[in-house]
């Protein structure tokens, strides 16, 4: 057995003329401590008023001191005493006193909301009885407690915070936008300058080239005519030699390569790679969430790519 000293509340309880009243006093003082916007003197006066008929026979000061120190063991002891000794009527009157102490001006603090719930459970009072009692005493229904662990609570109780947050977010966005537009502008200016320089150079070159070209054109025309005649003759001979080979105009190969985004002279591996990429890009399954029109367009493009690839694979 522990031979600890008796705590102040235990001593008070032992000296008291009525243990229930002392215990109730501590619980009421606990409720009062959690009332907001009330001075200490007002608290004591209120406690004295409510407990005028109590028969405890000791000072209220030490009780308030214990309640202020939030001594859990003392409160537990008081709760046990109250639960043991209170009859049904007495427990209702205790709850009545607790509600009046908690809500003089109608407002009940969040802490007291939970404390009153605890007292109601302790005294075996059903929620319906409790809410009707609350309504009778304060003239307003008992609402469920608000929840300060949620964002919604602070939107109601501290709108300034949210306004500030929004403003900050907007300012940050604006800043980012400004920075972007500035960067773009700078880029554009640079490009413009470069273009101007290039343009001047080009013009100078162009003029020179034109002068030379006019000289060359006259000679070139003559040479070309001769060349064309030679080519025609060669083609005729070629035609005669390879009549059995299937006809494949180079123009079509060029177009097929262009469809795949390649230049003439591409190897088979290049073509295969390009085809894979284009097929992935234009596959109609990529547009299954789009409109039917989009899907139709995609499948047309895909068909074109596929036929170009097939053609190139056969002929190169």
């Amino acid at each position, binding site marked *: *057995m*522990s*031979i*600890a000293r*008796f705590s102040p509340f*235990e001593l008070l*309880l*032992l000296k008291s003329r009525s243990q229930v009243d002392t215990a109730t006093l501590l619980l009421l003082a606990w409720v009062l401590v*959690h009332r907001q916007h009330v001075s200490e003197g007002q608290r004591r006066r209120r406690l004295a008023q409510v407990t005028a008929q109590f028969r405890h026979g000791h000072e209220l000061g030490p009780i308030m001191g214990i309640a202020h120190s*939030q001594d*859990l*063991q003392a*409160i*537990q*002891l008081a*709760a*046990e*005493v109250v*639960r*043991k000794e209170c009859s049904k009527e007495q427990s209702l009157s205790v709850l009545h006193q607790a509600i009046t102490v908690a809500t003089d001006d109608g407002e009940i603090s*969040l*802490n007291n909301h*939970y*404390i009153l*719930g*605890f007292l*109601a*459970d*302790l005294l075996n009072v*059903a*929620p319906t009885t*409790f809410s009707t009692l609350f309504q009778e005493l304060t003239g307003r229904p008992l609402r469920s*407690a608000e*929840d*300060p*662990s*949620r*964002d919604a609570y*602070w939107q109601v109780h*501290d709108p300034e*915070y*949210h306004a500030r947050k929004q403003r900050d977010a907007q300012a940050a966005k604006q800043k980012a936008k400004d920075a972007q537009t500035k960067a773009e502008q700078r880029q554009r200016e640079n490009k413009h300058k470069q273009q101007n320089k290039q343009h001047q150079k080009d013009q100078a070159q162009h003029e020179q080239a034109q002068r030379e070209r006019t000289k060359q054109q006259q000679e070139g025309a003559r040479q070309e005519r001769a060349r064309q005649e030679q080519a025609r003759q060669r083609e005729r001979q070629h035609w005669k030699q390879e009549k059995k080979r299937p006809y494949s105009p180079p123009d079509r190969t060029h177009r097929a390569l262009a469809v795949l985004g390649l230049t003439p002279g591409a190897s088979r591996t290049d073509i295969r790679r390009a085809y894979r990429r284009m097929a992935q890009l234009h596959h109609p399954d990529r547009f299954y969430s789009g409109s039917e029109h989009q899907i139709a367009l995609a499948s047309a493009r895909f068909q074109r790519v596929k036929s170009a690839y097939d053609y190139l694979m056969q002929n190169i």
Partner: protein
Amino acid sequence: MRDLYQRLSLAPGASDQAIKNAVARCPNSALRQDAEATLAVSEHRHIYDNLHKTVSDIGQLRARLGLTHGAHWQGDVANDFSLPPDNAISRHDELIDRVSFAVSLHNRWQRFRGPWLLVTLFAAGAGIGLAFGLALGLGLGMG
């Protein structure tokens, strides 16, 4: 009312930096928003901590008094602040035990006071006589 500290796996007295880190790490976006609005602003956190202390006190009291399943203790609060039942004995029983122990001590003292008084008186008298005799003997020897 939820226990944000528990949900973010923090201690109730965690530093601002620890809270910031835990909020950033939190995968639930709704909880992240709530925790940011509640714990990141010092005034909000002060109000929340005040309520948190009261509610966790009530949770402890309910566990000790066997009231963890009361009609007024439901929803988020009951989920987050209910503790496992406490095996500590009732404070009232403890008080009664201590009072009865004190009473038995008192009674024993009262009962044995007569004989013990005689014994102590005799011992005191003998002690004084011995001391006196010794002092006298020493005085004679010196003289």
